[in-house]
């Protein structure tokens, strides 16, 4: 039969669920150690439900300011900047550049300009631009592949956002062809899409 001070060696393991004949035998005959063990079990149980406490928001505010001061944080960027970071800046393809320049002239100068008259048929040949971009996009998805799933997901997400923007701008231009702001936004949106498609081809060439 073990003594009380010897039982103290078995007590921690007993509280973790480990049972030994020596410890069990001692507990059967010793009310003092039984009482102590019961108390310790209560303490363990109560401790597990002590609450976790949230630090005040000022801790994060101050921490963030310190991280910025030390230059450890990159500046927050909008979605387009994040895309540009995924896809390093590269010159646009010649075709995309020419197309968007022509579109810019048509949209910004207006339907009466000599340049606009040279576009096939309807000076507001937005549908041709849209078709051309759609064709480029189809080519891109057939021929170029992003190996990193996170980059692929980001590309698809940003493509969807640009397409939504294009759709919205086109609706506004259709409603009011003289709305210069809408035309500028539409040019910018097509520009973004061309950038995206160009970056995809560049990224594929890099093996990403």
């Amino acid at each position, binding site marked *: 039969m073990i003594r*009380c001070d010897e039982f*103290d060696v078995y*007590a*921690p393991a007993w*509280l973790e669920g480990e049972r030994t004949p020596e410890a069990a035998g001692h507990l059967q005959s010793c*009310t*003092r150690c039984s*009482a*102590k063990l*019961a*108390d*310790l079990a*209560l*303490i*363990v*149980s*109560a*401790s*597990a*439900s*002590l*609450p*976790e*406490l*949230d*630090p*005040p928001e*000022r*801790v*994060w505010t*101050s*921490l*963030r300011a*310190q*991280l910025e001061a*030390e230059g*450890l*944080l*990159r*500046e*927050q960027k909008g979605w387009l900047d994040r895309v540009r970071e995924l896809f390093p800046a590269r010159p646009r393809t010649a075709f995309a550049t020419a197309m968007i320049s022509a579109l810019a002239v048509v949209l910004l100068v207006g339907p009466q300009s000599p340049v606009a008259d040279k576009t096939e048929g309807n000076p507001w040949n937005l549908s041709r631009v849209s078709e051309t971009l759609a064709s480029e996009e189809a080519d891109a998805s057939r021929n170029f592949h992003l190996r990193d799933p*996170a980059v692929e997901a980001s590309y698809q997400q940003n493509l969807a956002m640009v397409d939504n923007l294009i759709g919205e701008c086109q609706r506004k231009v259709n409603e009011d062809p003289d709305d210069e702001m809408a035309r500028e936004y539409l040019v910018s949106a097509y520009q973004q899409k061309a950038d995206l498609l160009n970056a995809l081809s560049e990224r594929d060439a890099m093996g990403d």
Partner: protein
Amino acid sequence: MARPRRAAEGGEIPEAEAIRRAQGGDAEAFEQLYRQHSRRVYSVVLRMVGNPAEAEDLTQEAFLQLFRKIHTFRGDAAFSTWLHRLAVNVVLMRLRKKALPVTSLDEPADAEDESSGPKRDVGAADPLIEGSVDRVHLERAVAELPPGYRMVFLLHDVQGYEHNEIARIMDCSIGNSKSQLHKARTRLREILKDFERDRARQQRLEDSEKAEP
């Protein structure tokens, strides 16, 4: 196993990805990691130093060190364990500066026992704690533990770390972690019984004052 962290909320990315992005300086990733771990760190720091203003400073310091060194994190240990190790070191450094008796867990335990008051009479049977442990009393009792006992107790019984994780966090052996934990629990029991005796004595005093004409 450690208590589960705050569950990921909508828009949060997996921790491994957040760490990778934070290593690149991504501010949102930093913030996500902070939000996910700050509560556990602050909780243990506050219970160690007992002062909210100081706990805020030390929590900030722990995360600052974390983010300064995050580029060195290789994933060979759990991120939470690595962070808690930084936090524990920050706390222990502060306590040492205050000249509080913080002993290494690998020193003989007798040294810490001697510094924490006279031994109680263990010959007679001790009365049981009254069926349950009051949370307020438990918090007070934890605050009275010597720092070394308190840290192991908080990491194991409050935060749910296993002894092998505590050994990594506190740079001690598993055996020492277990030994210190048992001593911490035993000491808590003694402190809680003292609270009960004081409360009973106070109650008797009040009762006798009411009984007097």
